[in-house]
């Protein structure tokens, strides 16, 4: 009985915190716009609390920035229009998903390059080892079962 009560209490606490944590309660009438709104607010950095997105941040500036996003979407602007608007004011740093450019190329390409280097090293090691096995002509010593 004690355990059952504990589980119910835990669930009650978890469910209630979820409600409390909802910072942004915006609901746009158009579901497509709402999806884009959520995606955009989750990839723009709150400049005041720099490791949160504007969707997660309760500060006033974040809600002002969400308002800008909302109004631009309702005015028919594209996602890139919204990103450009923010970057023009706050710089590339505002994007949690940096755009591909000459400056950010290494950021996007480095994982692929590193993977390629790893593959090459792995292939070389495997080749060397199998060459060693090929040269090894000595028969493996085996114990014969007692007769």
């Amino acid at each position, binding site marked *: 009985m004690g355990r059952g009560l504990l589980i119910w209490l835990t669930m009650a606490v978890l469910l209630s915190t979820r409600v409390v944590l909802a910072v942004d309660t915006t609901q746009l009438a158009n579901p497509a716009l709402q999806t884009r709104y959520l995606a955009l607010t989750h990839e723009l950095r709150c400049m005041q609390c720099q490791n949160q997105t504007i969707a997660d941040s309760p500060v006033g500036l974040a809600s002002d*920035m969400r308002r800008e996003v909302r109004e631009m979407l309702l005015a028919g602007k594209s996602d890139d229009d919204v990103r450009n608007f923010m970057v023009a*004011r*706050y*710089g590339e740093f505002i994007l949690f998903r940096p755009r591909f450019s000459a400056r950010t190329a290494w950021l996007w390409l480095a994982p692929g390059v590193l993977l390629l280097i790893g593959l090459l090293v792995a292939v070389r090691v495997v080749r060397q080892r199998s060459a060693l096995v090929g040269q090894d002509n000595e028969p493996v010593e085996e114990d014969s079962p007692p007769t």
Partner: protein
Amino acid sequence: MNRFLLPLGAFALLVIVLAVGIKHSPEKGIIPSPLIGKAAPSFHLPVLNDSARTLSTSDLKGRWYVFNVWGTWCVSCREEHSFLLQIQKSGLIPVIGLDWKDDDDQAREWLAQLGNPYEVVAVDRDGRTAIDWGVYGAPETFLVNPQGIVVYKYVGPLTPDAWETEFLPRLPAHRAAKS
């Protein structure tokens, strides 16, 4: 020997990459403004102490000015206030205020109590102009030239030290005095 060369080289490369990263990382929390070298964002806002007046960016063209973003809710603004008064007293350059998301009455009270360093204060009640200027925390102070180009941006309470090293050298009067 040879088999240590590759890992050692990789390690050296890693050290270089990290060193460059640390050196280039901006001072914690301070983000370079993309507005530097660009036209000051335009606005058209009511004026704090004169409800009949409005202020636009075009009104400010033709002379150097300091654009200071503040609010009565901002603790560090109180810290820099006395220095703003000193700048005003020097008569070197006008200080234009942007009262960011504030209560007008409280703002007037603040200026009456602490002194008014501003030639004029524009009121940004809904915070749109602050976003246009890329403001992310008060106080922030911009230096704008007569062509309306943002020359410099300072984040945080303005100090005499920052004024001497960052603002004054960018002003023509200072340049002329030096040469």
